[in-house]
């Protein structure tokens, strides 16, 4: 499946949900927020929310800032 993640095109195989995608990328679920095609997905929905070919996904986390 081809996804656009944080502006980069990524080929990920064998994934169905946001949880699968995060696992495949090696990203810790606890510290991120996710947006799919402009829609914010709550952490509780990571398992149930499917991802589809060509979805545009943003995965963000907290960093230092003022």
């Amino acid at each position, binding site marked *: 499946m081809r996804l656009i993640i944080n502006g980069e095109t990524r080929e990920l195989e064998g994934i169905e949900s946001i949880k699968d995608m995060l696992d495949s990328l090696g990203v*810790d679920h606890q510290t991120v927020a996710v947006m799919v095609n402009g829609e914010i997905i709550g952490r509780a929905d990571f398992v149930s929310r499917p991802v589809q070919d060509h979805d545009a996904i943003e995965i963000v986390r907290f960093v230092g800032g*003022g």
Partner: protein
Amino acid sequence: MSGVLQVGSYTFHSRLIVGTGKYASNEIMREAIGESGTELVTVALRRVNLNNPGEPSLLDFIPDNVRILPNTAGCHTTEEALNVARLAKAAGIGTLVKLEIIGDQDLLWPDPVATLEATKILVQEGFTVMVYTTPDPVLAKYLDQAGAHAIMPLGSPIGSGQGVLDVEAIQRFKHRVSVPVIVDAGIGSPQDASLAMETGADGVLINTAIAHAKDPSLMARAMKLAVEAGRLGFEAGRMPKRQQAEASSPTAGMVGR
């Protein structure tokens, strides 16, 4: 510390808010936060680096008793800021947000129109909104009416260390708004922080002045004491200024006179 800082339903026993940007390392930041005595630190929201997804989370370096205040730094439009605020809320750390929408990149000066618009929407969506704004008293009234939970005028441009250029603005704000007034941006040294507090600010937000000090932990402690001293000075009520001297020692009973 005298009194508490109340922002919406959140209570803080320190009037110093600390930013988490620009530290040489997460460890140095953690130590400085500890020394500052703060109970609230700002953080930014950025894309995960997909080439290094396992890097340690900033949140692991923030003490348990310290609450997180996500900012919308870097946003230039209402839509961008709303998106970042909503994403931060989705990350599950509460309803606090520091709203910051920039209208001039060189000065990092807030865009007053977009800021007011976003404040209204975020308040309606249930956020606890702390608004970074210009030192404009009329805008402050509008932000207050829009339901902002704290109003944060800049002292001088972000990261400039120029101090509070218009100290009177703090009093103008205090006379016109019902929520805490927190001086955000420009504080460069303990005297700046103390002056802001002594003038009546309910709190100050400091990042660069601590992070870029030669010894961030020591500066964090200095800022803690400066904020406390300034606040106590404000509550104590300073003496009136006079044009001429007034002797502190008795003028009667001088020897040989």
